[in-house]
């Protein structure tokens, strides 16, 4: 064993000892299969996205059936707020919406997948989630009408306001 390896092992042992001193150590190990069964975090670079695909045209059908009651036709507004805006982020009446404000397209997929529709969260399949996301990104002017989204192309969609955020109480690394 090399010296760095010995140091590393020693530090791990120290950490383990400290944990035993502080708590009873009742955590049960999670296997790789256990972890694979947990909900996934979806990051802006696409890590965590489920494999699948959906088209803008399929997304419009799903949106019209399941989303208009709260978000209006073509995302123009309802009890759940509008998703698409012609407005700006500056001026007397700024209008943040998905197309004008959201920094990452992956967030749209992830929130739709975990939370929408609110009457039946989690009921959209992976492909349906890609389709609805594709439709909203089309309404945002970021995908063509015949466009398709999958786990490779979604993180490559650059939202217009991606760099519009300043971190206040956290540091970028």
């Amino acid at each position, binding site marked *: 064993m090399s010296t760095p390896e010995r140091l590393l092992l020693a530090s*791990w042992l120290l950490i383990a000892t400290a944990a035993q001193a502080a708590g*009873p150590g009742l955590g049960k*190990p*999670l296997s790789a299969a256990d972890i694979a069964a947990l909900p996934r975090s979806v990051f802006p670079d696409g890590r965590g996205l489920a494999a699948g695909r959906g088209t803008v045209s399929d997304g419009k059908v799903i949106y019209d059936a399941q989303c208009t009651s709260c978000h209006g036709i073509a995302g123009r507004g309802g009890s759940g707020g509008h998703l698409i805006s012609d407005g700006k982020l500056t001026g007397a009446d700024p209008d943040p919406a998905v197309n004008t404000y959201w920094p990452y397209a*992956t967030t749209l997929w992830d929130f739709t997948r975990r939370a929408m529709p609110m009457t039946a969260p989690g009921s959209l399949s992976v492909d349906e989630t890609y389709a609805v996301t594709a439709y909203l990104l089309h309404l945002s002017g970021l995908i063509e009408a015949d466009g398709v989204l999958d786990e490779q192309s979604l993180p490559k969609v650059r939202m217009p306001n991606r760099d519009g955020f300043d971190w206040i109480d956290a540091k970028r690394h």
Partner: protein
Amino acid sequence: MSEGDETSASGLLDRRLFLRRGLRWSAAIAAAPSIAIAADIPSDPTRTPGQPFSNYGQPSPQEKATIRWISANRAVAGNGVSWTPLHDLEGIITPSGLHFERHHNGVPQIDAEAHRLSVHGLVQRPLSFTIEALKRYPQRSRIGFVECGGNSNSSWNLEPLQTRAGYLHGLASNSEWTGVPLSIVLDEAGVDPAARWLVLEASDAIGMNMSLPLAKARKDCLLALYQNGERLRPEQGYPLRLIVPGWEGVLNVKWLSRIELTTEPVMSRNETSRYTELQPDGRARQFTFVMDVKSLITSPSPGHLLNEKGLYEIRGLAWSGRGKIKRVEVSADAGKTWKPAALQGPVLPMSFTRFRIPWRWDGAAATLQSRAVDDTGAVQPTRAALVAKRGRAGYFHYNAIVSWQVSEDGELSHVYA
């Protein structure tokens, strides 16, 4: 010392006055809406046996107007808030049943025996914890506030909203929280040196997920199992929530089920498109975690009535996510002159602090304000200064001075002053 020396022109008296003398009080501040007293109250309670025991006590039926005020989405009843009635409460502890709520899709019903907390990602030992296991860990208690980042948001409006103080500023509540220091569980899992963030996730119907810097998680966060001595209420996260002292409410994830250690924030919906503040230049403030220094007068406040001239106690709450409250000053003349209020102990960091100051109302119109300073030197700003700095579109993190106008009739209203 003569009374003239103690009284400012605005009628504010020395904060120690009540301690020095037995002053005669004016009739108590009346609540404007009168509550019909239940018909079955005996005329003489000493001449009839009292009520039997109860398994779980309830407030007097005569106090049934002291409620959380619910404002929910008309299409999704579980998406909205309920406000703590700060104007009806005293001391610094919010009763658990009156602690504010912010739910994004209802209060989940969770089987505590089946519930697990998973800790994984950049750790040496991914682990799962039952609630029973967490109960065996060393417990710590802290008294502190939880405040929604969106508290007081109507005060960004051009016109002051007329409602009770708690329904303007009561997305803030204060409890004793008890649970396991998060650092113990993180150490047991063995955090990888590359980790910088935690992604916290809930078992609710939006799968609430939020990113928290590792340094804060290690510093003072609690895996809370108890609120005010009893197990968490369902609407406060039963069976497990995180308490993140002094930081915005949404990070205090309720119904906590998963913690993933990562190098970067996950950029969830509620840390990008919500809980960020759009500024006049079109840029947005993100990860605005700390709740800044704030105070308000809870009594008298709109809905209360001063029914005669005379001596009143001005009472309020102050808090800061940066530390302890150092000083609260009160003005009865719209900020022209200020007098220090008495801080009632305990004065705890990142906790509600109760302040009091006697005031002699002479029957003239007056504007009451409070201004808090914390032990980092941060001063609660005027509304004009806050709006000049941040614009009005940011929605979150409103902490400006609150103004109540007293009319010659003794009625109170919300004004911008």
